[in-house]
């Protein structure tokens, strides 16, 4: 695919050069050399080198804030994604955070012969069933567990909490023993080849498993399965985020989880960009939060459609600007007076926790707030063992 095709496909030629994208862009606020408008202009003028060889191409968070403001409906994130594919072809990879380990793991997982040991954390406490037609997507959690142990992130804790919730709903899900990375990060950094291979591996396994529905704990995987896999592979099943599933069940029967424990806490909610602006899921997590007795939800200054990204996407180009963005978002959370920040995305949590490990500048320390995934909060409210599934 060349630049001309990308312009045609993403309707970049509709650009009015109004600059609204740059004015709302969270990256441009801290990094004055980053300008979505300039990137589009470079593309329209045919300046491929200026566009794809610039390291700023990989700074875009693909958070879709620009597109929500664009009067011409230019799909800038997809434009960036495709331009990155050209950049990859020319040897540009962006600056990979965590020395590129996560990207490397995705590439290693394309090997057809690996036999992962990704379900060793699974204990008797959780009920899973081989015959179930619901699949719980575990995703990168078993890899995140050791990689991010020093920032006290428990990605598997989120998976375990989700299993507990599903069990309480009377669902005994199936887990795939050898699922691959969903390929989200590979796709968004322009590594289409790796993405395609991973998608094929996953689609084959899902077909073999014969499931009707896949439940996700991570909005990135959810987005990838819902919007990107259909362009490459045929899944033939429904996909849902755990918050949507919960909201649906609670909407039908408020006591579906049994009697929930009271958690007296004031909380605020971070909309993950993949779940919010990418897929339009804003209400479901809030409805779930409101269903927990004692929880008081307060909104941040920017929430819903205007919500600010956690600062890094696809573990690429994580720099001082990302850190400032995170600090700002955490200050907003603290300013609400909430005791806890709830997210629905393990990656948002990773990035925020990472920012909080950093002390910050002397005159402006990084704000601190307790942070928890929605699934963990619900699982805590369910209490010991939860409601019997029978």
């Amino acid at each position, binding site marked *: 695919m060349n630049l001309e095709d990308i312009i045609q496909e993403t309707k970049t030629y509709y650009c009015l050069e109004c600059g609204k994208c740059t004015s709302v862009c969270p990256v441009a606020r801290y990094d004055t050399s980053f300008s979505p408008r300039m990137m589009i202009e470079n593309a329209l003028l045919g300046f491929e080198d200026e566009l794809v060889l610039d390291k700023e191409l990989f700074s875009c968070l693909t958070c879709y804030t620009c597109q929500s403001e664009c009067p011409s409906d230019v799909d800038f994130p997809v434009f960036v994604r495709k331009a990155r594919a050209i950049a990859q072809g020319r040897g540009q990879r962006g600056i990979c955070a965590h*020395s*590129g*380990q996560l990207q*490397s*793991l995705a*590439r*290693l*997982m*394309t*090997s*057809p*012969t*690996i*036999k*992962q*040991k*990704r379900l*060793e954390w699974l204990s008797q406490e959780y009920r899973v069933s081989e015959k179930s037609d619901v699949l719980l997507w575990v995703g990168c959690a*078993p*890899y995140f*567990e*050791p*990689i991010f*142990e020093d920032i006290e992130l428990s990605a598997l804790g989120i998976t375990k909490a989700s299993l507990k919730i599903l069990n309480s709903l009377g669902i005994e899900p199936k887990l795939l023993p050898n699922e691959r990375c969903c390929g989200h990060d590979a796709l968004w950094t322009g590594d289409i080849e790796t993405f395609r291979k991973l998608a094929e591996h996953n689609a084959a396994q899902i077909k073999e498993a014969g499931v009707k529905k896949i439940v996700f704990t991570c909005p990135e995987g959810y987005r990838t399965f819902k919007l990107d896999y259909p362009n490459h592979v045929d899944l033939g099943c429904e996909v849902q985020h755990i918050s949507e599933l919960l909201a649906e069940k609670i909407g039908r029967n408020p006591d579906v989880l049994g009697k929930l424990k009271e958690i007296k806490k004031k909380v605020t909610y971070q909309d993950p960009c993949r779940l919010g602006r990418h897929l339009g899921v804003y209400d479901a997590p809030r409805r779930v939060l409101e269903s927990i007795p004692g929880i008081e939800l307060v909104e941040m200054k920017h929430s819903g459609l205007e919500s600010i990204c956690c600062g890094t996407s696809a573990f690429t180009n994580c720099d001082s600007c990302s850190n400032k963005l995170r600090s700002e978002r955490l200050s907003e959370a603290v300013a609400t007076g909430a005791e806890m920040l709830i997210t629905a995305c393990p990656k948002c949590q990773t990035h925020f926790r990472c920012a909080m490990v950093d002390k910050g500048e002397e005159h402006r320390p990084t704000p601190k707030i307790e942070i928890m995934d929605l699934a963990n909060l619900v699982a805590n409210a369910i209490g010991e063992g939860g409601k019997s599934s029978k």
Partner: protein
Amino acid sequence: MLVAEFEPQIIAFCCNWCTYAAADLAGTARVHYPPNVRIVRVMCSGMVNPIYVLKAFEGGADGVLVAGCHLADCHYLDGPVKCDAMVDKLRKVLHVLGLEDERLRREMVSTSEGVLFARVIKEMVEQLKTIGPSPFKVKMEALA
């Protein structure tokens, strides 16, 4: 037909001050060890980043050795401590990926231990021969 015996490929990250010198010593002292190893000289075992090891596996290595000074010998004071922490963490990641523990080896070999270096390589080659080629190598051969 004669089937060629599987010859594992090992990438060894050796610290400039101890293990690289030990490998040198093994050479000058005519201590024999299998030629399956490719040595990458690094200034300190503490600078070996997880991505170096992962890249070696991506490139089709069957085993990776990370070797450097003993704990108190480090030219930069705490390199081996950093290296141990890195290897411990990476081992957990590689375990989830389904890679056998023997494929990543961490050793401390000082300048005078040329014989030990040769023994480590011999042991590693034997172990890798029993467990067979790396699962990522198959991918690379399929591509070629």
